[in-house]
């Protein structure tokens, strides 16, 4: 069996499962945010449920439009807050301790290897980086999970992606996943469990692994997963507060497909509008002038991402023709960035630093685009109108390309500003 099949079998109380099997799985953690949880709470109540399955196994994170951007958003947050109070939900995160959910929950040790995590947010697949099975669902499903602690799932086929070779300078997990999506397309892994493996993955820090699993959904994947190793264990050892289990794929595990990538041939990548699979090598995009750069989100708001951006921006000013918005994903990352002098570097370069929020990634607030404007962003989606006006454009890249381009004023390779 694959790692995914083993996790699902154990959570369904079965010895084994095969792709296509319908199972009733026990859920270790269920999560919702200020956009999806209000509908889930409504579903929970309409079902006639009086009690949550386990108040310690539900996480409610107001992160999308918070600190509340308008009255309606404030009302949404209030629904979460009241529900959390009524049901004594342990992991409700109020402003000040809240961060972007998919960076916050691993940081807090709430998701661990071998878990089944169900979240009403498509980027719930992020936790696969820890060797957990995690996938996004809608609000009705979340409502059902909050009531029962279980969810029916179809066991997905596996798609094994093997990365080998030496990683080039300025290349991170973002470039590898963009390259992969460019190769297989936005429905290239539809309904499948993407398994990222190979020696190149073993050298990636957790931040890059989270980034890769995060964007599995952009290839249509149900989940993305990486087998735990020393780097994973090192990440969770000070965070885990409950037992966990390490699963690995058998050598003879079967996959619906296997693809190999020589990472020594992968340079920094950029996804052009209006679909994440429209990917090019940064040197092949031409001179694209930009109005705004965003560094942050559940994809690239990690401390490592801010560090690489700061390394490039240190002692430099951003181009006068653009705005740079930097968003640390969690309060802990914000605090550590302050300690390391990273925030000072951003401010001196001319950037604005936002509190943790999903904000501009989905055109919510804190950097919405006007008609005709063009942004380069370290986020995960560049659909038409994603960050604002329907006539605006979004380009996606990793933090190194984003920071370098903020200095130049147009999309460029980091080497162009780091001679």
């Amino acid at each position: 069996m694959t790692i995914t099949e083993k996790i699902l079998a154990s959570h369904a109380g079965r010895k084994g499962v095969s792709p296509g099997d319908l199972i009733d799985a026990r859920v270790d953690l269920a999560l919702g945010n200020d956009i999806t949880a209000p509908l889930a709470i409504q579903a929970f109540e309409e079902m006639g449920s009086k009690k949550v399955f386990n108040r310690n196994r539900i996480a409610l994170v107001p992160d999308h439009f918070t600190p509340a951007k308008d009255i309606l958003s404030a009302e949404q947050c209030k629904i979460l807050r009241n529900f959390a109070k009524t049901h004594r939900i342990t992991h409700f995160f109020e402003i000040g301790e809240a961060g972007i959910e998919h960076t916050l929950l691993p940081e807090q040790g709430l998701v661990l290897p071998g878990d089944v995590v169900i979240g009403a947010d498509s980027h719930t697949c992020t936790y696969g980086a820890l060797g957990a099975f995690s996938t996004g669902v809608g609000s009705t499903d979340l409502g059902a999970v909050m009531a029962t602690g279980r969810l029916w799932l179809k066991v997905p086929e596996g798609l094994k992606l093997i990365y080998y070779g030496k990683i080039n300078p300025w290349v991170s997990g973002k470039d590898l996943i963009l390259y992969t999506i460019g190769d297989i397309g936005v429905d290239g892994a539809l309904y499948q469990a993407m398994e990222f493996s190979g020696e190149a993955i073993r050298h990636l820090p957790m931040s890059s692994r989270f980034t890769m699993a995060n964007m599995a959904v952009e290839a249509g994947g149900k989940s993305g997963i990486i087998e735990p190793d020393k780097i994973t264990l090192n990440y969770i050892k000070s965070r885990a507060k409950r037992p966990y289990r390490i699963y690995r794929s058998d050598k003879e595990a079967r996959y619906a497909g296997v693809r190999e990538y020589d990472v020594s041939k992968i340079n920094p990548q950029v996804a052009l509008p209006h679909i994440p699979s429209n990917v090019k090598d940064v040197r092949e995009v031409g001179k694209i002038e930009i109005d705004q750069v965003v560094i942050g989100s559940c994809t690239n708001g990690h401390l490592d991402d801010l560090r690489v951006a700061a390394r490039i921006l240190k002692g430099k000013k951003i181009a006068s023709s653009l705005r740079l918005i930097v968003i640390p994903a969690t309060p802990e990352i914000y605090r550590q960035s302050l300690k390391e002098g990273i925030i000072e570097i951003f401010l001196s370069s001319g950037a604005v630093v936002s509190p943790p929020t999903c904000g501009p990634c989905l055109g919510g607030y804190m950097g919405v685009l006007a008609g005709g404007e063009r942004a380069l962003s370290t986020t995960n989606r560049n659909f038409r109108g994603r960050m604002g006006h329907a006539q605006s454009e979004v380009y996606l890249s990793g933090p190194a390309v984003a920071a370098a381009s903020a200095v130049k004023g147009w999309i460029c390779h980091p080497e162009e500003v780091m001679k």
Partner: protein
Amino acid sequence: MKIEGRIWKFGSDVDTDAIIPARYLNQSDAKELAKHAMEDERPEFKKEVKKGDILLAERNFGCGSSREHAPLALKAAGISCIIAKSFARIFYRNGLNLGLPFLESSEASEAIRDGDRVRVNLTTGEIFDITQKRKFFAKPIPAFMQDLIRDGGLIKHLRKRGLKRKG
């Protein structure tokens, strides 16, 4: 179960931001969401769509975010059924949970034109293009799913028929 309406045709990879832009997600009221369905993708949709109309698309319909607001907005706008070559995973699950039926047919997706009148039989999977007088077949919707659709979605279905918990 039979459905009849005008076809609204879209292409491949229609994402949830196109179906309902995130700027309207600061609330969850179905009628409010319906007022903005597809507004960036096709501005006349929200004004001209009528109850019973059918949405037709190519591959990977509903890709992107997990927002249940997307199928909710389409259903509240009057859409009675979506036919496509394929659906994105979360959207598919969300739609059925809300009682919005989906059929998969590559032939229908290619042949049926925008504005055609189409009759759909969910029990047999028959898709009849009244305008072109052509017939297509998709996999029928199973009986239990038709019950769920008739009841208006998973929650209402469970309430009506009783919530049976396993183990």
